[in-house]
């Protein structure tokens, strides 16, 4: 769907403070970095506290990234929290060919209408919250969303994310690590294009 070899990819994350959008963008950057690419990950900063809507960004490129301004026209938009849909304005600045990944229990075209997405846009839905509740016993939608992203980034495999978790999350117990791996895999498998 998107391929870094065809130019710089810009990602925008819509989440809530404390929910992990910032860490998710950081993990995506790390995985891309490990794949030998030039990356940036940066959130928006303000006085917001836990729960407030926040945005985070990524840039991924095969060439050195010079610009450090905010992302205006993302190629990929990730909606981390389904309840944000209305307020977050996820289509802001997006081209018609933008790709959306939405954490939502719905897997029908309703998602498009709810978010007001154009027909030309590719939209993937995954119930990341349910997956992590089942696998980790808590609402940490990052792992499934990253797994699903492996289907959006045609040049990154789900194993890259799994390997990264195994490497970086050494502090986690084997049990939690396995649960996270399953959550990543399920995100990849259960994401549906709507």
């Amino acid at each position: 769907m998107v391929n870094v070899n065809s130019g710089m990819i810009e990602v925008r994350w819509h989440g809530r403070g404390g929910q992990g959008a910032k860490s998710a963008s950081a993990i995506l950057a790390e995985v891309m970095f490990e794949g030998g690419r030039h990356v940036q990950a940066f959130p928006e900063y303000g006085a917001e506290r836990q729960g407030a809507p926040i945005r985070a960004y990524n840039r991924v490129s095969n060439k050195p990234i010079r610009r450090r301004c905010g992302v205006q026209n993302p190629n990929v938009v990730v909606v981390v929290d389904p309840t944000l849909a209305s307020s977050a304005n996820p289509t802001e600045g997006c081209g018609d060919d933008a790709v959306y990944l939405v954490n939502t229990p719905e897997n029908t075209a309703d998602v498009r209408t709810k978010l007001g997405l154009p027909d030309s846009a590719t939209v993937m839905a995954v119930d990341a919250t349910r997956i992590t509740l089942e696998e980790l016993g808590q609402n940490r939608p990052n792992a499934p969303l990253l797994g699903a992203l492996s289907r959006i980034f045609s040049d990154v495999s789900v194993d890259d994310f799994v390997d990264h978790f195994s490497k970086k999350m050494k502090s986690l117990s084997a049990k939690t690590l396995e649960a996270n791996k399953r959550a990543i895999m399920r995100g990849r498998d259960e994401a549906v294009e709507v």
Partner: protein
Amino acid sequence: MGSAEAVLFEDKRLRREMTSGNMAFAEAMRQINPDVVAAYPITPSTEIPMKFAEFVANGLVDTEYITVESEHSAITACVGASVSGARVMTASSANGVALMHEIFPIAAAFRAPIVFGLVNRSLGAPVNINCDHSDSMPERDSGWIQIYCEDAQEVYDTALLSIRLAEHKDVLTPIFVCQDGFITSHCYEPVEFLSDEAVKEFVGLREAVYPLLDVDNPVSYGSFVTSEYYFEIKRNQIEGMNNAIRVDGEISGDLARLTGREYPPLDCYRTDDADYVAVIMSSATGVVKDVADELRARGIKAGCIRVRMFRPFPSKEISAALSGKKGVAVLDRSASPGGVSPLAAEVKSALYMSCRDGFVPVFEFIYGLGGRDLFPDDVKAVFEKLRAGNCGCGASYIGLRDKMGGGD
């Protein structure tokens, strides 16, 4: 190449890791292992004293870490330690920097080679935690060297380089290592770190002159001085600043041999044959370079100069780089209400020296106050104004909501 150098070459690319501007500066501090750090937290530089406290708590450094009760005491303790002969580092931002203001000229006059991570943030009111240069610019005449970094890699390299520059016997001047708050300090990106051994070897040990702690050869610092001596003392101090560009060149060369990265006082991008040049500092440079490439593709000869060293200001270099240009735009991230904004004032006065070779129109733009972004379209508009030559005589404001449509 000496054998020591050979060793450095082998392990120099030991680590390439994801990090941020703050973490890169903190990591440099760990590797430099200063004798004393005194710091007080303030956004957005807080991560630096936090991370360093972790190093101390885990025994990764030998540093005496003084958790002072204010920024004023932080810089004061740094001066006391530095005058004692210690290698000293600290960090701060915005109002913290302003609270330290009184002590900066004292540190410079004491020739206390403190290396200071200044994470640029707007100076209230109103309160705003994001980036502009209104905190460091008021300190430009405090007698400190000011280096403005573009990204986390440069922050790391500059921290290492600054230790040797500040402590060099011909310089003996404290240094602000400036980076843009959040944009650089909190952006997560790859940085190449030297090995601990390589850093240890590169920075060496401080050889203090007249250390306060030499009880067998006692000297007094901070005298009361009448007009009979004051002038000579200040002129003597200024000489250290005057030597900084030369010494920086030498030390940058040493660092470049280890890293392959060059840091001249000016970063000139496609300026040689350029008709129109934008002059800027710090993190917003990349956008200007991108736009310059875009315009070049359309046959417009655009170029970009990033001023890395603001104090001492490389006047000769910039006047040489800009003479003969059809138009120059200076983009300042701080204003000087009632006067010419800081960078524009320096560029204009530098060009005055070469005005006999032909007048170069210089236009003043103010952007990014309180962290407002500078986008490619903003920069394109600047170059359009330059080409049209209608930038007005006063400052134009970029990205400002304005009933009159902005500018003048």
